[in-house]
């Protein structure tokens, strides 16, 4: 459902272009709020029909609004991860604890007797349909939540997200950016040194071999880090950031406490079992406390962002749709919980009630409401060039791509 069709029909292409709207990137925060809303909705139900609908919604929006950047292609990985979770859940149900099965027995596996001290744990035994279904529902719920987060990752660039972090967290963001750019260099230098080792005969074994690779690579990495640090320093990194000690302490405590509050609140909200007041008080409370901390620090930090993602109408629409889905399902769970948790004993077919379906219909709207993403490289076959977005010919540049191969043989 998410895999791009090799040859989309003309209507599909017109649809992806967003009906004449200019392609632009949507604020990553909007996509994350939308995805969290969907995930909240998923956490509120074990109804496989609803969960499948949520998966379909997430997949549909991703397929229509993701860009062609490398991170966007990682969505498939999340799908596989979800599948793995479901399979594991069901397998565990069959292997352990199936002995307690009552009701419809699917297969009657012989139970392996366990010693006295492992009382309560069953290994194999009769496999009950209810039991397996329960595992499947549980796994599906978790898988759906993970796929929702995967959708956010595919729709919003992780690096752009870092750009949007509050100024107070800028240092952390910068560290992550640097780490992300140093990693490929490190891999490259390992390749280079390993190849160079062959030039000396490559006879060393064990620790000596490790050493002959590790020492030049580490020296290289150190040199690079120093050069990078010097470059960042001379380009003004860390300017205008002289905070008095007390302010630093206060903001640090505020931020930390606030973030813990947010974590607890989110947990309480997602986990139906915790008292409701915990989620309702901790999440906003934490947000406010952390917000004060961020504002206090951020006010002192003087820096600007190049081409910041603006929060415009489309962003509001996307975020409201996602949060609306979550809220509607939350509402349903209070009015008509039975529909969200299909009964296992007695076994009953899951049913779809109008309200949850309406909630999911709201969740799919961003597929139309969000503007289409800009394409960095036109992909032949997958995206035929639209008349108003002419394909830029790849510049016949003398350095084009060739530097890579020289790099790789150094």
């Amino acid at each position, binding site marked *: 459902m998410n895999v791009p069709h090799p040859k989309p029909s003309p209507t599909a292409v017109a649809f992806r272009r967003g009906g004449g709207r200019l392609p632009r990137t949507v604020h990553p925060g909007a996509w994350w709020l939308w995805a969290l809303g969907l995930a909240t909705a998923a956490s509120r139900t074990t109804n496989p029909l609803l969960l499948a609908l949520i998966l379909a919604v997430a997949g549909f929006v991703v397929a229509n609004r993701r860009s062609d950047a490398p991170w966007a292609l990682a969505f498939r990985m999340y799908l596989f991860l979800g599948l793995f979770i479901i399979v594991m859940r069901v397998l565990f149900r069959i292997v352990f604890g199936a002995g307690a099965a009552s009701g419809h027995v699917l297969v009657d596996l012989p139970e392996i007797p366990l010693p006295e001290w492992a009382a309560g744990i069953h290994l194999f035994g009769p496999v009950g349909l209810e039991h397996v279904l329960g595992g499947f529902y549980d796994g599906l719920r978790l898988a759906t939540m993970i796929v929702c987060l995967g959708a956010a990752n595919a729709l919003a660039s992780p690096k752009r997200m870092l750009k949007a972090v509050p100024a107070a967290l800028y240092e952390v963001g910068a560290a992550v950016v640097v780490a992300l750019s140093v990693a490929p260099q490190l891999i490259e230098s390992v390749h280079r040194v390993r190849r160079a080792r062959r*030039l000396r005969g490559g006879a060393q074994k064990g620790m000596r071999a490790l050493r002959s690779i590790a020492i030049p690579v580490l020296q290289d990495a150190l040199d690079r880090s120093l050069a990078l640090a010097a*470059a960042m320093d001379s*380009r003004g990194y860390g300017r205008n950031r002289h905070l008095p000690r007390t302010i630093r302490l206060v903001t640090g405590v505020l931020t930390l406490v606030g973030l813990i509050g947010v974590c607890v609140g989110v947990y309480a909200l997602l986990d139906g079992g915790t008292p409701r007041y915990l989620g309702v008080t901790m999440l906003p409370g934490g947000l406010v406390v952390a917000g004060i901390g961020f504002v206090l620090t951020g006010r002192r930090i003087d820096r600007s962002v*190049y081409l910041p993602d603006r929060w415009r109408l489309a962003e509001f629409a996307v975020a409201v749709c996602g949060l609306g889905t979550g809220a509607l399902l939350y509402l349903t769970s209070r009015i008509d919980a039975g529909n969200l948790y299909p009964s296992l004993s007695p076994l009953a077919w899951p049913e779809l009630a109008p309200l949850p379906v309406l909630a999911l219909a709201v969740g799919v709207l961003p597929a139309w409401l969000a503007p289409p993403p800009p394409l960095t490289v036109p992909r032949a076959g997958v995206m035929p060039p639209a008349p108003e977005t002419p394909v830029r010919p790849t510049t016949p*540049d*003398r350095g*084009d791509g060739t530097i890579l*191969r020289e790099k790789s043989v150094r």
Partner: protein
Amino acid sequence: MIEFRDVTITYADAPAPALRDVELTIPEGELCLVVGRTGAGKSTLLGAINGLVPHFTGGTLRGSVRVDGIETRSQPPREFAHLVGVVGQDPLAGFVTDTVEEELAYGMEQLAIPSAVMRKRVEETLDLLGIAELRHRPLRTLSGGQQQRVAIGSVLTAHPRVLVLDEPTSALDPTAAEDVLAAITRLVHDLGITAIVAEHRMERVVQYADRLVHLPGDRTVRDGAPAEILRTCDIAPPVVELGRLAGWSPLPLSVRDARRLAAPLRERLVGHTPPAPRPTDPTTGPLLSARRIIVRYGDVIAVRGLDLELPGQVTALMGRNGSGKSSLLWALQGSGPRQGGTVDVAGVDPGRAEPKRARALVGLVPQTPGDLLYLETVDAECAEADRESGAEAGACRALLDRIAPGIDGAVHPRDVSEGQRLALVLAIQLVAAPRVVLLDEPTRGLDYHAKRRFVRVVRELADAGRAIVLATHDVEFVAQVADRVVVMAEGDIVADGPTAEVVVSSPAFAPQVAKILAPAEWLTVTDVGNALADTDVAHRQPDPSVSPDARASAADREPTG
């Protein structure tokens, strides 16, 4: 704009200062070229301009350095970001983000420049440096010259008044170097930026310089008009050496100036023929013959089925960055990938032989020689090399002493100079006694003296009957040492022949002497000097302190570090 007053800089743990009693004033809008031998203190001088020395590197600074009236001791380097733009030796190492546009904006973000101004400046800078079509490209996929221009652009967006460049063209092929220098001169002439450039390859920059700062190596600094300083300077580009030889005054700094003065010299040289390349022994076959070599990385074809035979002479492999030179060398040695073709060295294919055997057939010194070194001392590396190649103890050290005498064996290989490290790796590879030696970009980071000594080493190796291949961008070095030049483009050989034949007519690969004396095929000042000395000794009374031979012998006494 920049004032050094009585500056002495001493690094921590160093017995002697790196620079002492520096008095230097660089007025606004000048292009100032800093020259000096490796380890003479060029990087220290450049680093002191924005306070990286001593704020970042440690050490003590006495005296005062002022930029635009602000003293560097008063503030850390980041507070000079809007005033001084620094571009380091390896642009890739200084990049913080991963696309061109973001990199250009990074410095401005730190300076809290409003978003609208940022957009305007990014566009202007893209146009100024001619990199507009690269704006969305990932930085790692750019060629060396493009990276260097992006690095310059990324500091320019902060609108600095001073631009500091450390070796901006040393890793670039001649054409890419022209692009970068054109960008720099344009900034100086059109925007009035003060530029301070350190560069080993003076021949590329000296003609554009308004001021020359020379670090003679005794930790002091001399400065003045380029022609004035070069009259007595111990390092000089070929055009100046030719000018000294011919007694031209004022000394020409560019090929154009020299050519206008050279008519009498060209007449004097009529009747002399340049020395012929080293004759190859026709009785012995080629030491290495390669047939239909193919190297590819995925869709990219690096070497396109070429044939190459290497007799016992010095072959220079030239061509722009990414034309497949390195890939070819690695494929010939057998350690790199090779998707097709055969290599034959004494009946054996090094690609199919054991690494140990392959290295006894073909030795390769890679672009970053340091990759091969991993022990604590030079002596330990030498001993390890003896063990690896089954040579008798001390063989490597003896070789090293012949190539570069006087390296302290107890020193860490990282602490020796660039030229000495190259010599060490070359010695390590020569211990295995290969008949074919391949060197990838050996002159990167070598000053004129180290280069001249290296020329002699390469000649000796070739005289001993070895086949030497040098992949290099350095046209002057090729003119001095190579018997034959092979030019590659797009993984194929586009020209192959004796050095003079290939380079003299080429706008990119011709050495300065050839450009001045064309159409006669003279390549080096030494050749011209020898030819003149043969006949009209009476006309020429060279100052012994500046004759090429005297300089060459002085070059043997290079200090360590």
